[in-house]
């Protein structure tokens, strides 16, 4: 606040001096110039009357000549005084308006306001560095889940976009370089409610700098970073960055999952992706046959080892192997956008094509050309820019990969439902049939909508009533947490995916399992089950109703849950 006041005062010095001088001269003139009273006797205006007259004259050009009509000499002086005072006023007001529009002044005001907002944050928040496609997707989904965030981006345009966007929560945005520690501190790195830092800029070095600054200044914070190269990843891991997300590795890993266990891939799509309309259909990437991979960049390099590990024959198409490096199995020279190259790669007998260059136009062209030559192809398409969304929707690829969205979704799961992230990890220990059974149970619960997932901690904040019942020694099992509070005897359209007790994680815990204080439970199911469940968790009366219901019908315990 200080700097703004001082800035105003310093700029207003000259206009104020001019005002004082003009008023002084005008008043003095009226006092010195002789006048006449109503009887024609000589009369001198006092300082009081002179100041009174000049005051209203300057601002309104007069109520008239008072207390007596002026002599010509006085009128002559009035003429001078009018122009002088009006000019001084215009000068002062003009300076003030120019000051308000001054970029330095505006910046000072914005920074001040931002700092005040950050100081007043009372809810836990995450610091998100970079508000591009990834950052905006992440912040939007966090805001929808009532999770506060503070954004830093170097582009003023992006911060303006953030201000214009209709978020459910207020998200403060700072325009600045996240690689400068001062900006991180201004954005609340040392704030006691800061829970973690997410570095999602498109420059690896900046992400690295953010990670190292955060780990040095606040070692207790969760730091999540995007990294596009192995060296940077290794560097980040070396000083304890909690999660490092590489979009291409993440996607390749998921593709591998799709080849190995399509149902697990499906569950991943259902639970890990937000904002999809309808329940995504299962996809079955061909696990044998020829795959043509166009582009041997970061994407191709991540995908090819996964395909080869699954025993798939791969042909690489790359136009500039001198820049990307020559793949060990050799490559077909060309972009893949022309029929000739694709024929040379063996498109006629191919089972799948991966359009994975860093150019959206080329990727679209590859898919259209390839489909013209072989309509039955399985298509994996890489989308680089969010603004091409409409075109990529139209082309209906079997699997679409958007690096920014991949990162945003992974980070969202990490921050909002860490237990879901653990669940995805332990799910891989199960086989495909287990996942298929889970998928059909889920589909039965939610119909044609994507399932929602949420985490509950058996503690006072999340589950007041349950916590109290446990403290009184009354056992509560999972089936009771899934009881429908409005329809006694029925259960909610949801199921418990995982229960974490300390380091131990139970997959698909039995409804008869008794919960304990401190358990974290991951539920998933119909979106309306969550608010209904909150009644059972939090309201002592509602939970008592569930207890009564359970006692009255002990013989068919959990029947509705299992059915």
């Amino acid at each position, binding site marked *: 606040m200080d700097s703004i006041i001082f800035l105003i*005062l310093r*700029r*207003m*010095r000259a206009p104020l001096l001019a005002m*004082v001088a003009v008023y002084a001269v005008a008043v003095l003139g009226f006092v010195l110039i002789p006048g006449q009273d109503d009887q024609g006797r000589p009369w001198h205006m006092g300082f009081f009357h002179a100041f009174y007259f000049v005051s209203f004259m300057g601002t309104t050009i007069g109520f008239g000549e008072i207390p007596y009509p002026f002599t010509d000499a006085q009128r002559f002086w009035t003429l001078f005084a009018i122009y002088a005072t009006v000019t001084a006023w215009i000068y002062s007001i003009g300076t003030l308006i120019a000051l308000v529009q001054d970029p330095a002044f505006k910046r000072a005001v914005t920074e001040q306001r931002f700092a005040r907002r950050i100081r007043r944050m009372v809810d836990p928040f995450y610091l998100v560095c970079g508000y591009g496609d990834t950052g905006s997707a992440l912040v939007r989904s966090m805001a929808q889940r009532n999770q506060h965030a503070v954004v830093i981006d170097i582009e003023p345009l992006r911060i303006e976009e953030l201000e214009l966007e209709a978020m459910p929560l207020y998200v403060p945005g700072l325009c600045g370089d996240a690689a400068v520690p001062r900006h991180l501190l201004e954005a609340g790195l040392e704030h006691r409610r800061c829970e973690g830092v997410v570095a999602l800029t498109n420059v690896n070095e900046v992400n690295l700098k953010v990670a190292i600054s955060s780990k040095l200044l606040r070692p207790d914070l969760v730091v999540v970073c995007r990294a596009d190269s192995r060296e940077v990843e290794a560097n980040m891991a070396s000083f304890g960055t909690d999660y490092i997300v590489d979009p291409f590795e993440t996607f390749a890993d998921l593709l591998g999952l799709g080849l190995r266990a399509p149902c697990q891939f499906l569950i991943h799509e259902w639970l890990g992706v937000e904002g999809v309309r309808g329940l995504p259909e299962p996809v079955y990437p061909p696990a044998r046959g020829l795959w043509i991979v166009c582009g041997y960049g970061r994407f191709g390099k991540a995908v090819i080892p996964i395909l080869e590990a699954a025993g798939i024959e791969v042909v690489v198409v790359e136009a500039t192997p001198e820049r990307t490096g020559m793949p060990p199995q050799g490559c077909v020279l060309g972009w893949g956008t022309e029929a000739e190259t694709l024929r040379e790669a063996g498109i006629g007998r191919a089972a799948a094509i991966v359009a994975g260059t860093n150019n959206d136009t080329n990727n679209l062209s590859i898919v259209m050309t390839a489909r013209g030559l072989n309509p039955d192809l399985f298509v994996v398409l890489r989308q680089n820019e969010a603004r091409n969304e409409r075109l990529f929707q139209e082309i209906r690829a079997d699997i679409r990969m958007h690096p920014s969205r991949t990162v945003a979704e992974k980070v969202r799961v990490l921050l909002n439902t860490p237990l879901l992230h653990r669940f995805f990890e332990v799910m891989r220990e199960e086989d495909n049939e287990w996942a298929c059974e889970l998928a059909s149970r889920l589909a039965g619960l939610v119909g044609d909508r994507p399932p929602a997932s949420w985490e509950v901690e058996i503690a006072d904040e999340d589950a007041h009533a349950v916590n109290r019942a446990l403290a009184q020694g009354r056992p509560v099992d999972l089936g009771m947490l899934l009881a429908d509070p409005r329809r006694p005897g029925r259960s909610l359209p949801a199921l418990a995916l995982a229960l974490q007790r300390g380091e131990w994680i139970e997959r698909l815990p039995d409804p008869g399992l008794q919960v304990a204080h401190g358990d974290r439970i991951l539920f998933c199911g119909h979106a309306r089950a969550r608010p209904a469940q909150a009644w059972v968790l939090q309201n002592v009366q509602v939970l008592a109703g569930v207890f009564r219901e359970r006692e009255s019908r002990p013989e068919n315990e959990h029947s509705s849950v299992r059915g």
Partner: protein
Amino acid sequence: MNPEKVVFGFFIVLALTLNFGFVLGDMDDPAHHPVYEFFAVVVVNLIATVLKLGDRTQIGAVLLATSLVAVLQLLAASALWTYAVYVSAAGLTPATMASVVSLSSGAVLANVISVILLVVETVNLRR
């Protein structure tokens, strides 16, 4: 030599000298306290105050504070004087004149502090 400093010092010292000159004389005798001189004191003090605006140093802040005190005292004195001459039925009594002068004397003190601070700052300057 910095012309800005010359103007700055000039007005601060002038504010004190004019103010001092106005206060001199019998306290309750209007003939010893000309209204023109009082007008000059008010104007010069206002100018001195504006000149001190926007200085972020510690000494600048104290300088501004002393000037604000002086201006406040002088405005009170001028309001009192105006009231006595134009509004009050009794007119300008010796008692009123005495309080106008005493208010102005307070402004003298504030201006003295201002000049002392100016001198201190100048002495502290290392060549």
